[in-house]
């Protein structure tokens, strides 16, 4: 996601560079805010980002920082620091890495530059238990005020129950009250504007997605991964909208002139689970066989599966509640299953590569379930193997490639009627 990753993954779009620059832009903003004595929030779990941007609160998010460290090949190092503190190797590397970076006796030069220490910690139990435990520990460590945002789970699929939405909404209101103590006054107009921008962003995103369904696809997962930052981190800001407008233009042009990621697209794949942030080139790896990873699951995180029209700027908190509760990373799987069925159909997918992230209690456990349901519906196969997208210490190139090679080989032979 960071600029340094761009070199590793072969991207085809111009706008990708721009999207990755927004990362630096945002962190510089956070650092500057800290210098001006604005309280910095560390946020964990999927707390709706629109709130931070509406109230102009500088925020460092758990979901993003370890990826930056991984891109720098530093994740293993920091995870080890957490292990030295007594955390087992079995916890999610997002957390061990973040903990390690925060607990390093001295934040090293790289980290400190981007990583102002927290004044407030906000955590949500969404999507996993660890999302609350890490911040709890850090709040104790930094002696920081701590806010816990309780999110109900969603076992109902697309029809969320009213009382659950209301409960989450109330909790968001309480968050606003809490933030007020630090001088961040709730500004209703700004919240509405933020949700409006977020809605606009989702509309753009959906148009881009439509073009990507074309064969050959004008934009692959490597670009998608890096372009995710505005959608995931900056929804509710103008800059995100600008970037996506340009992205849409570029993708449209490519699609209209028939430009694809590879010359001859033979197989279309989706990547489920986290790609290795320390080796994003892996998303391009199947291209040598004419296989393109056209989508990665991560691009749908943060409520991107929501129909943009379901957002209503007049009711910002309710809209954000819906956006969160419908997220496919919800601890129960109904929405994730629906997402997969839909993507497989709409993108004319030939095969799914799914990775089990070590230490993750959320996505891997569902992979088999999704494999079975998707296969039942569309006969599209899915290969599942272990790969930790954050921790680079145990990455085994040979093992991973053996899986991908074999999988693509079997897809090709199926398509080509087994020529060999």
């Amino acid at each position, binding site marked *: 996601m960071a600029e340094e990753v761009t070199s590793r993954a072969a991207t085809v779009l111009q706008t990708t560079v721009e999207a990755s620059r927004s990362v630096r832009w945002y962190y510089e903003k956070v650092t500057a805010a800290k210098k001006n004595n604005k309280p910095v929030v560390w946020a964990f779990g999927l707390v709706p980002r629109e709130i931070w941007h509406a109230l102009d609160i500088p925020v460092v998010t758990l979901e993003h920082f370890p990826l930056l460290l991984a891109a720098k090949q530093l994740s293993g190092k920091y995870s080890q620091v957490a292990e030295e503190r*007594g955390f087992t190797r079995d916890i999610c590397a997002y957390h061990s890495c973040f903990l390690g970076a925060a607990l390093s006796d001295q934040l090293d030069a790289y980290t400190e530059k981007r990583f102002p220490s927290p004044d407030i910690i906000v955590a949500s139990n969404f999507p996993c238990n660890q999302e*609350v435990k890490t911040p709890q520990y850090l709040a104790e460590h930094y002696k920081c005020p701590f806010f816990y945002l*309780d999110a109900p789970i969603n*076992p109902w699929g697309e029809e969320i129950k009213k*009382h659950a939405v209301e409960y989450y909404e109330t909790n968001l209101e309480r968050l606003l009250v809490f933030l007020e103590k630090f001088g961040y006054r709730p500004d209703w107009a700004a919240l509405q504007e933020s949700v409006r921008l977020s809605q606009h962003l989702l509309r753009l995103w959906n148009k881009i997605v439509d073009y990507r369904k074309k064969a050959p696809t004008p934009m692959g997962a490597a670009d998608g991964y890096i372009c995710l930052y505005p959608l995931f981190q900056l929804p509710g800001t103008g800059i995100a909208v600008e970037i996506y407008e340009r992205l849409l233009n570029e993708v449209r042009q490519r699609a209209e002139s028939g430009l694809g990621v590879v010359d001859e697209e033979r197989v279309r794949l989706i990547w489920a689970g986290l790609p290795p942030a320390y080796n994003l080139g892996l998303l391009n790896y199947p291209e040598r066989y004419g296989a393109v990873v056209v989508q990665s699951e991560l691009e749908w995180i943060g409520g991107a599966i929501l129909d943009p029209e379901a957002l209503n700027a007049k009711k910002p908190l309710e809209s954000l509640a819906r956006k969160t509760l419908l997220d496919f990373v919800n601890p*129960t799987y109904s929405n994730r299953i629906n997402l997969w069925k839909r993507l497989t159909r709409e993108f004319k997918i030939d095969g799914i590569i799914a990775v089990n992230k070590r230490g993750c209690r959320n996505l891997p456990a569902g992979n088999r379930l999704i494999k079975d349901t998707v296969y039942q519906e569309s006969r599209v196969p899915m290969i599942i193997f272990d790969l930790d997208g954050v921790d680079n210490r145990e990455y085994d190139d040979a093992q991973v490639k053996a899986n991908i090679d074999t999988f693509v080989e079997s897809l090709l032979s199926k398509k080509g009627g087994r020529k060999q």
Partner: protein
Amino acid sequence: MKSLETMRRYVREPQLLINGYRALGKKIIGYRCLYVPEEIIHAAGMVPYPLFGGPEPISLADSYLQPYICEFIRNVFDRALEGKLKFLDGLVLCNTCDAVRKMYDHWRTYIKTHLCYIINNPQETYSNHAYSYYYIELQNFRLEMENFSGQKITDENLARSISLYNETRSLLKKAYLLRKQDPAALSGAETLDMVMAAMIMPKEEANTLIRDVLKEAGNRVDRRQNSGPRILITGSIIDQPALIRLVEEMGGMVAADDLCTTSRYFWQEVKGDNPMDALCLYATQRCLCPCMHPAEKRLAHLQELIREFAVEGVIYFNIKYCDPFIFEGVMFKEVLEKTGIPVMVLEAGHDLSGIGQLKTRVQAFIEMLW
């Protein structure tokens, strides 16, 4: 002790109980974990039945729930896949740890039980709006249970169930408090058997047996003169006495434990005039599980146990991949050690495989406390 022997037998051969329930024509509803209100199931004329793991190694579950999910849940799910839980008419889960939540979809897809329901309880407790949200969830659950059993749950029935369960809770607590004495009249392993039996038994019968335990324990002659260090065990679920027994064999005295198969089950009682209000209040104010917020309440509770039972060392048992306790173990270890209580975090699989290494750790910890 005869009463204890009877209870232990039920834990080892739950089929005896299950046959009994079946003979009465009762529906059996499996559940996990403690945030499922048993009383509502009971008041609908059904049997709430807590699910435990078995001693057999996991075979099929690993290919469905990948291995980064706690072994306890994988074990339970494995038993279901193997057809060992066919006696269940339904399953009720609640919103606690990831492992439990993950099992929901898997159960619905792969295990054909008539009912699979998850109660969407809040994870924030001691708060008014969580209370009102949970109240709706409980009402929905009550309706669901009425529909499923075909029996109306009247407030009277519910109140009766609550007082029956409360009696079990208070009796268990009395027995548990016997361990304050030195040497204790009940060992840790015995307590575990007693509570687990009470959890799966008809409460009327359980209450009689626990009363007997209380009587018999008073004039017990075979009290062990085990004056080793007083230890508190807490952490992930322990559903077989092996670990507790190991600590006792190594010379430690398990003076107290805080487990969902022991004290967490009965520590508080359901209080209040209106039964639904009482249940709602109970669930949102017990806060004895690390999945729930705020953690300070739990820490305070542990510290109280440590004081009351004159605990000298704490063993934190983590089942591999059990995040709530893994994190809590690290956090509380730092805090407790600052107050002079040594804490050993013991990570192991649900089946306690590699018991040799565990032995070394436990033995060294006890040697350290002598």
